[in-house]
């Protein structure tokens, strides 16, 4: 039965998060934008407390992971809850939201392809007292979307692996490896002649000799979030830190597992994008309303002013993009495939937030462009959502291959 009623647990959660966003994030937005690489510890500590209380992080025991898996008679809301959370936090501040402690992308990779023993070993640190992060390292200076072209090598030596290479654009790399006892899941090839089949994820824990965070990028937006370069030089990890099998010939699960995590992470990025978009839309509408400019629902578009029309079209686009994102996560909670919808919502939300925030700056004129207000910041923050977790173009490629029934060779 088609239904659009926000479940009460989600509505309740959003109410609390809205207060946090208004009281804690918005007042800090400008400061952390202007003081890149400072860390919003107040937010982080509050969130860590909240996460421990609500049990969203890893808990040892039979019900690993998050949410409501133990209430199997009720419809699962885990991913739907998550995107509502992310949307509201990003409405507060998308850069600060990205500093939220937790197992993040690194944890997702372990949950997707790790053994129960590995999950226990690497994720139990997220039940501790101190805020902890984990991250994922895929991109290299010469290889972004073309992930199969990575050059970081992992070589079997004795009872472990030795990793050499350079990773860039690691979101939260500094927090995972320097500011906490976290880890990075680093992608390396165990056989450079094997292409994708040779790619494997390795867990490298904070403090491992041979791993150095060498640089923090200076970015257009999301400046509160650290984006690290990590260099691996003769970095040795135990054999058990390999996620998946060491056999190149038979084992494809590793790479596919990484790709499968995108099915969960792309809607999260879409939700973050749409939180920024909503913040912008609301601010534009409030500013216009204060000048007596209203945007009524129902007037034919050829009777509207250009400004009214822009605002209503922004609102329509945000609404449609949100529903698509919601469907992509509802499918996960229903344990159904969502690769197509995950890429679709990422395309749509990435495009919507880019347009909405750029239009928002334009509509507000000198107010939009000024750093006294946050609209210009939202525009800078927004753009990342059309870039990371697969650019808009990579996601179009994924959707196009699926709808056309083409392989990656047939549609390049």
């Amino acid at each position, binding site marked *: *039965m*088609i*239904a*659009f*009623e*926000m*479940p009460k647990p989600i509505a309740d959660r959003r109410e609390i998060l809205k207060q946090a966003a208004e009281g804690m994030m918005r007042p800090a937005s400008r400061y952390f934008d202007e003081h890149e690489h400072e860390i919003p510890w107040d937010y982080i500590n509050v969130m860590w407390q909240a996460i421990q209380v609500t049990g969203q992080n890893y808990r040892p025991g039979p019900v690993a992971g998050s949410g409501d898996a133990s209430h199997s008679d009720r*419809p699962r809301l885990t991913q*739907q809850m998550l995107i509502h959370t992310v949307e509201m936090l990003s409405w507060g501040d998308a850069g600060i939201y990205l500093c939220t402690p937790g197992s993040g992308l690194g944890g997702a990779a372990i949950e997707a392809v790790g053994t129960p023993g590995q999950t226990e070993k690497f994720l139990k640190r997220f039940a501790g007292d101190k805020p902890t992060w984990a991250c994922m390292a895929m991109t290299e200076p010469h290889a972004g979307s073309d992930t199969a072209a990575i050059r970081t090598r992992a070589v079997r030596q004795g009872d472990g692996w030795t990793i050499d290479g350079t990773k860039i654009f690691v979101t939260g790399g500094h927090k995972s490896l320097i500011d906490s006892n976290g880890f990075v899941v680093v992608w390396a090839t165990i056989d450079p002649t094997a292409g994708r089949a040779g790619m494997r994820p390795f867990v490298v824990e904070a403090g491992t000799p041979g791993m150095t965070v060498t640089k923090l990028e200076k970015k257009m937006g999301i400046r509160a979030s650290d984006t690290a370069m990590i260099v691996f030089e003769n970095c040795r990890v135990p054999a058990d830190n390999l996620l998946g099998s060491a056999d190149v010939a038979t084992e494809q699960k590793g790479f596919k597992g990484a790709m499968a995590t995108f099915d969960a992470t792309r809607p999260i990025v879409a939700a973050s994008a749409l939180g920024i978009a909503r913040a912008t839309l609301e601010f534009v509408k409030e500013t216009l309303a204060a000048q007596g400019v209203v945007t009524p*629902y*129902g*007037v*034919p*578009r*050829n*009777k509207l002013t250009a400004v009214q029309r822009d605002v*209503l*079209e922004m*609102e*329509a*686009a945000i*609404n*449609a*993009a949100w*529903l*698509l994102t*919601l*469907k992509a996560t*509802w*499918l996960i909670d229903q344990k159904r495939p969502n690769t197509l*919808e995950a890429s*679709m*919502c990422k*395309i*749509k939300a990435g495009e919507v937030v880019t347009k909405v925030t750029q239009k928002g700056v334009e509509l507000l004129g000198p107010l939009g462009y000024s750093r006294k207000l946050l609209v210009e910041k939202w525009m800078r923050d927004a753009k990342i959502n059309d870039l990371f977790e697969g650019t808009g*173009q990579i996601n*179009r*490629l994924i*959707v*196009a*291959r699926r*709808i*056309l029934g*083409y392989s990656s060779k*047939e*549609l*390049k």
Partner: protein
Amino acid sequence: MYSFEPTEEQQMLVEAVRRFAAKEVRDAGRDADESGTLPQTVIDKGWELGILQSSIPEEYGGFGARSAVTGVLAAEELAYGDLAAAMAILAPGLFALPILIGGSEAQRKTLLPKACAGGHFPATAALIEPKYDFDSAALTVTARDDGDSYVLDGEKCYVPLAADVEHLLVYASLDGKTQGFVVGNGTPGMAVGEREKNMGLRGLPTYEINFSQCPVACADRLGGAAGHDFAPIVNASRVALGAMAVGLSRAAYDYALNYAKEREAFGEPIARRQSIAFMLAEMATEIEAVRLAVWQAAWLLDHGRDATREAYLAKIAADDLALMCADRAVQILGGHGYIRDHPVEMWLRNARGFPMFEGMAMV
């Protein structure tokens, strides 16, 4: 709770409508665009699907209950076949559904059983007016209360099937408020004009109607003496048209996708070029997103909530979607898209009208 899954019953209806629409309605619609006439057999078959009848409760002669969600699912499928045919098949709902939504008990009891009793019920509604800034909330056709009756004056246009119907619901401004009036065809003071000639919808006969001192009994005001709220009616219309725009978009998308996989250029199917493939990916994405916006608005209507915002936002998104998909379908077919051997040029002509089709469909 959120859910994006129609009930089994709804899925069965969708499949039944799709089986009928994808071939029979599609072919008839294409021919009618040339000839101007939809075969009565197609309209009758469409009527026999029982889309309207199952929206009317038993106490009023139907066999179901109105569900805007079910309505939009069916409307999308019919419009996937052909927009003109979809509008013709569903035209009786333009009259019957507002009576169900806003009519008095007496109006429901007398008029709805007639609508459900037999074949395609000869009824329609007149909302649109021939002016560039037409606005259903600010009509120029007026209703004047002269004590014994209401008197209608002014000009309507785009009234589907007006020459052949017995009953019309005519919307007019009564003291600045949009109100419906039940008018029998041929009432003195009412003159149905020549059939209109339009860019698209050429299979759907539409007419101008002139009202000059046209009297309507007080009891025939929709909702009786107290009148009715226009908002749920116009919202239901926007939702229905949104669904039809999605249906048309999907037709254009499917057609272009299949063509692009067949058509070869430079030694391979053109779909293997990103410039074509990405257009298709964007069409698929937008169709999915806008469909959900339409569903959401329909769901609000079904739960008796104010759907004004969502219905309007879904409608403007759907208007843009239809134009974008139809235009791209023509573009993907290249010169062939411009030739009337293919239906895509017709879909582009039809799609352009959505922003002004207010009140031409109901769920």
